[in-house]
């Protein structure tokens, strides 16, 4: 009775927990090995090993195994045992570093350029064809070009992040600047505010929420793309870790990585959401 009268947030939380428990339960049942498989040819069993032949032990781990793996990684995230065996914290650190670097470089170019595009209809029309053609290109399509020209795999993946975080920031900045209310600009005009001061004191604060939304979309896309980019170039990073564990057929490690990738993405998104709230103004 009390649960029914509880707040919606509590109810939603309760449903989430129940769903999680149900999913984990189903998973546990599905992944638990069952005895008494079909009869196996002893020659074949000798060849591939008893377990694999009988199909008793699947490569799919149970939630408990994944939990144990996750705990191992969380309690010792920063070990280094050779180039291919490094802690998940180090791998995530590489990926976050690349994303932040590529994203920051993109912001440094996209926001000023978007500002100019938004301010000048001429520049907008001149650059629009380029943006329209380049924007739908998958960022990974740039990878061979980047590898060829930069000749450094780590830098190439940063470049790919740079390219893919450009577009949402560029377009949102231009749109935000273009849609600054005319009356605010008229106020600035009647006060004879010089262009530079107008850009920083009127246009920028007015467009800031839209720009921040672009940044939030960008960081989300960058975090999606980094995993794929690191799978391609290898070496370090969480994407490489996932691919490496696929080669090791360690599904428990892969699932751990998936969970952590999701959590880092959430943190990045919420950080930008918090910054957006700081610059948003009620009208």
């Amino acid at each position, binding site marked *: 009775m009390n649960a029914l009268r509880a707040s919606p947030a509590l109810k939603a939380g309760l449903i989430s927990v129940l769903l999680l428990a149900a999913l984990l339960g189903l998973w546990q049942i599905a992944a638990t090995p069952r005895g008494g498989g079909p009869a196996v040819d002893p020659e074949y069993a000798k060849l591939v090993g008893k377990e694999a032949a009988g199909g008793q032990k699947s490569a799919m781990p149970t939630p408990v195994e994944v939990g144990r793996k996750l705990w191992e990684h969380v309690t010792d995230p920063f070990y280094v045992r050779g180039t291919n065996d490094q802690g998940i914290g180090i791998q995530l650190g590489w990926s976050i570093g690349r994303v932040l670097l590529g994203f920051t470089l993109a912001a440094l170019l996209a926001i000023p350029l978007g500002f100019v595009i938004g301010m000048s209809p001429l520049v907008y029309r001149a650059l629009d064809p380029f943006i329209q053609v380049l924007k739908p290109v998958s960022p990974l399509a740039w990878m061979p070009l980047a590898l060829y020209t930069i000749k450094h795999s780590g830098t190439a993946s940063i470049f790919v992040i740079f390219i893919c975080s450009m577009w949402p920031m560029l377009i949102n900045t231009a749109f935000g600047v273009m849609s600054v209310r005319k009356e605010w600009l008229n106020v600035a005009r009647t006060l*004879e505010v010089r262009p530079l001061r107008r850009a920083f004191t009127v246009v920028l*604060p007015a467009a800031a929420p839209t720009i921040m939304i672009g940044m939030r979309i960008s960081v989300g896309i960058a975090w999606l793309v980094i995993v794929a980019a690191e799978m391609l170039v290898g070496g370090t990073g969480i994407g490489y870790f996932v691919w490496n564990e696929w080669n090791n057929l360690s599904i428990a490690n892969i699932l751990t990585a998936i969970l952590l990738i999701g959590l880092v993405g959430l943190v990045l998104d919420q950080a930008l959401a918090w910054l957006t709230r700081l610059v948003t103004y*009620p009208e």
Partner: protein
Amino acid sequence: MTMRPLISVEGLAKRFPPPSGRGPATTVFEDVWLSIDKGEFVCLIGHSGCGKTTILNALAGLETPSDGVIVAAGQAVDGPSLDRAVIFQSHALMPWMSVLGNVAFAVKSRWHGWSRDKIRAHALRYIELVGLKGAEAKKPAQLSGGMKQRVGIARALSIEPKMLLMDEPFSALDALTRGTLQDEVVRICGETEQTVFMITHDIDEAILLADRIVLMTNGPGARIAEVVVNTLPKPRVRTELHRHPHYYRIRNHLLDFLVTRSKSFEREIAAGGYDPRRPPQVRPGEAEPALVASNPVIVSAKGGAR
């Protein structure tokens, strides 16, 4: 005494090209001549679509007329100026700035070299003038419509302009708030001897505030039909106004114009004697009521300036 007017509108016109690119242009208004003396409060009344806001924007320098010039303090207007402050209908406050921030922004625009403290003190003085002392840290979203418009007035006055341009500043407010703000404007303009040009729909507002009321015919092709001199003595008090014998004569004259004559003014022009450069100045307040409806008393142009 022939004093040069502070503002002189000469042969102003606004035309829009036809939408298809062919055919005749649409003329919103044309041949608008008007002068405003220093310290004068002039109201412009007319129906929607006669180009009132365009005239105000041209005075502000925000819009370029198709024809004609505006001379302000001896110089042709070719863009916005700090000498002509605008109070916008929609208050146009920057929502990310506080009340103080909005006013200080204007003060800093006027006096670049001032110190932070000086700007703050100056802005606070005008915030106090409009009765918003104590609300200076609030954001516009936390203010009522009337308070927002007070900030707009404080911002416009704080730059100490030669002239104040108001575009239906109170039309978005409820009647009670409108009344209080009108009283404030009467008080502030009395104190500062501010020159004001204001657009309004509201006849009573015009009678309360204006020294002269400019009447425009209906658009397209609108013109200034005549200028009504407000003969009610100053200071005018809203609650006492209707007791004065001139009040209803002026009010009826204005109403009469808006209801019928603004549409049929072409015929009065055709009858002859109308000079767009010198639209007739009438004093319906002094006329006998019977005379007003049929035959407005025409007085020669004020001061013989032109």
